[in-house]
């Protein structure tokens, strides 16, 4: 079949009109057809709110190893954090996932040790967790915006968006992030087949995502304070609004000497360690 220029233009013109018509039709269908109404959402009425959540850690209140353990266990149980163990019962460092954990002075505050400090000072235990930085390096490097700042200062993460690239783990100067190398539900403390139990109120994570402390956003939303604060010895962990001049933590920070982990990096950590706490509050 041969076609002259005039016929070709006719066919082309009609086809493009039909094509355009179809586009218009489908677009109107999108507008007029069944669609989600604009979402009507609201925050929980009894949610705890703040301009900037922060925490003061009073190490003098952590007296025994048990104090540390019960704080860590409270957090990890509520959030279904897997606990991978080697056959001999020790923590399997290769797969370890931690939200809040114990470390020593030397590792928590590198560069602050002095020449003649005794071993007992360098080995002094510290409770560490995500610092919920003002200017977090992890948020800056995340290629999918899976980790981000909430307006109340919490550094949150969206497990649905995490692609497991681990940039955030490389960026975080506090080692606060852990990667799920294997399915966390295989851990002995979560797998019912191994005698484990999950908290049905909170999800687990899946293989291939990074996780960390969330400052218990899900608990704040229903008016509860973070699980670690609740479980720690009285006054050991203090949680409050840094921007509120009348808050307890603000008063302590104003009056007592507190230090933060690696402030020189400019991340603006929001976890303050109280030195020589004693009978402050």
């Amino acid at each position, binding site marked *: 079949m041969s076609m002259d220029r005039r016929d070709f233009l006719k066919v082309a013109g009609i086809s493009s009109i039909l094509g355009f018509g179809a586009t218009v039709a489908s677009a109107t269908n999108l507008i007029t057809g*069944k669609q989600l109404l604009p979402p009507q959402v609201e*925050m*929980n009425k009894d949610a705890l709110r703040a301009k900037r959540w922060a925490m003061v850690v009073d190490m003098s209140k952590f007296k025994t190893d048990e104090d540390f353990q019960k704080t860590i266990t409270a957090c990890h149980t509520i959030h279904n954090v897997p606990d991978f163990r080697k056959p001999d019962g020790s923590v399997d460092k290769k797969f370890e996932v931690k939200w809040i954990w114990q470390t020593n002075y030397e590792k928590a505050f590198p560069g602050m040790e002095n020449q003649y400090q005794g071993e007992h000072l360098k080995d002094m235990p510290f409770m560490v967790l995500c610092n919920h930085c003002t200017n977090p390096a992890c948020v800056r490097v995340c290629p999918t915006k899976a980790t981000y700042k*909430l307006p109340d200062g919490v550094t949150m993460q969206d497990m649905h968006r995490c692609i497991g690239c681990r940039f955030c783990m490389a960026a975080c100067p506090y080692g606060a992030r852990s990667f799920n190398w294997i399915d966390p539900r295989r851990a002995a403390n979560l797998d019912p087949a191994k005698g484990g139990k999950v908290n049905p109120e*909170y999800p*687990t994570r899946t293989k291939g995502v990074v996780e960390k402390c969330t400052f218990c956003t899900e608990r704040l939303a229903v008016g509860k304070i973070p699980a670690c604060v609740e479980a720690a010895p009285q006054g050991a962990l203090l949680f409050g609004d840094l921007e509120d001049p009348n808050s307890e933590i603000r008063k302590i920070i104003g009056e007592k000497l507190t230090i933060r982990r690696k402030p020189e990096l400019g991340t603006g950590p929001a976890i303050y360690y109280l030195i020589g706490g004693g009978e402050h509050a």
Partner: protein
Amino acid sequence: MKIYNKGLVFSLILVFAAIALFPFLVQGGRVAAKPDPKTDTPEIMQYAQEHGGKKECVESKEWMRGEHMQLLNQWRDSVVRDDNRGYISNTNHQRWNMSLQNGCMKCHSNKKKFCDECHNYLSVKPYCWDCHIQPAEKEEVKS
């Protein structure tokens, strides 16, 4: 008309037809049982009893059937990214807690008969349950 390699061509056409028609031949014209999701969990029955026999969901049943996937996505973004956890229904203007584990599945505690019933039929495999924990399946009551 002359066809080259007649034997080969026709036998391959037959092979192709056999592969293409395989699903239909296996099914043998039978229609798979239509999915029949159940909303008769004890929790829902109790809700209905307390609300004058009315089974109410976040939105109407028909709407939910078509749009629940978008709704769930919207809920997810709203909760995770904006910390807004309350949803005001367009149908009954009530406030519902936006949560899969602590919202939906508290009433629809029968994942097998509620979610999987249609999802299996349509062969859709949402990955919700890779992380979210499904409620323990109750013993099925024979009626």
